[in-house]
């Protein structure tokens, strides 16, 4: 399976938050395993730093039942708006034998 990185409708969600159309929610990392049904894991304690216009997010959602999983999708989305992922990679099929999958995002706001 080809690996694809892409932006998603989470950008629209960000703008909706900025326009006051929805209440702001946090941005946990999430991943989908090859369990059936697919599993989405959140990290409500993700770290975030800002230096000027550079924002860095680091998240490590833990699997609730550690085992060997295939991560087929990893990215960052809005909590309670998981369909509106901000950025993601799909088609990874990476096996994980520990409980952590880390997702980092560095985003610079420029004009």
């Amino acid at each position: 399976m080809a690996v694809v990185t892409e932006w998603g409708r989470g950008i629209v969600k960000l703008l909706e938050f900025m326009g006051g159309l929805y209440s702001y929610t946090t941005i946990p990392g999430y991943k989908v395993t090859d369990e059936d049904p697919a599993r989405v894991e959140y990290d409500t304690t993700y770290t975030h730093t800002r230096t000027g216009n550079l924002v860095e997010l680091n998240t490590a959602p833990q699997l609730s039942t550690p085992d060997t999983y295939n991560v087929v999708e990893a990215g960052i989305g809005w909590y309670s708006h998981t369909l509106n992922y901000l950025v993601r990679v799909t088609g990874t099929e990476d096996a994980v034998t520990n409980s952590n999958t880390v997702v980092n995002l560095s985003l610079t706001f420029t004009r």
Partner: protein
Amino acid sequence: MATITDAGLEYFAKFFNHNESSDIINKIRIGSGITAEAVGNTDLATKYTNLGFEEATASTIEVLNTTAHPYTIHLQKVFTNGATVDREVWECGAFTSGGVCVARHVFSPYELKNAGIVQAGQTITIDIYIQITPDDITYEKSAETESADLTYSFESNFIISATVGTDAIDPSTYTCERGKICFNGVVLPNASPPMVTEARGGKTWVIKCATQTYADVTKLVNKQGLVNVGVSVTGYQYATSLQRYGTLKIWENGTHTAYNNCLIAGPVNVETFGLWYLFELTIIQSYYGEV
């Protein structure tokens, strides 16, 4: 294009950074300043603060994700000039609920219809579009070991830009007092029945006016301009001027008939007779509208 300010850029980063700033973008200001846009702007140069032109919360706040407006937040507000005099709008800006100037725009001469002049009682609609353009993603993945995490890293830019709608004032929308003749909503005082000549695709009206209030004279005379009239190769009358086209409304058969693409030909001579000011307006219609 409008200019995204430094403060606006920082606001975006703060908002994204775990809601470090919880302000939302919902305010619009308009003003008469013509100082050039700059990234260091924190407010309008000369903002209006009263009589309908003061800062207002946008009546429309929507997020667009269309071909024309991808990843865009759209703010719109209709401002009504509550003053008793005409006011000019040369600048506008989008602000957060906390007063941060996110974007500012200075209109070019004639960018707005009717040259940005908003007559007393009339409205101007401001549309501001702020767009996020996501850049290409740089993606890396680190290998997993027994003791290390499997790490996915994304890196990219969000490019923020803003535009302002340019159809803010449409003279054809100006209302006219019942039974009167108006040019861009301004009543022609004591107007005589118009003398009309018609060319192909356009008309010319000559109308005598009289008033004892000089302000009524200036409201019309400041819209005059030297007008070049001719016939195009296709046989239609054209009229051009440095003034923008206006709309003449004539009361006919119980309703107003609107004639668009009209110009007041100058110079307009004003004579006095006792307490009265007498003047004659020549209004020329072009078959062709704004280019």
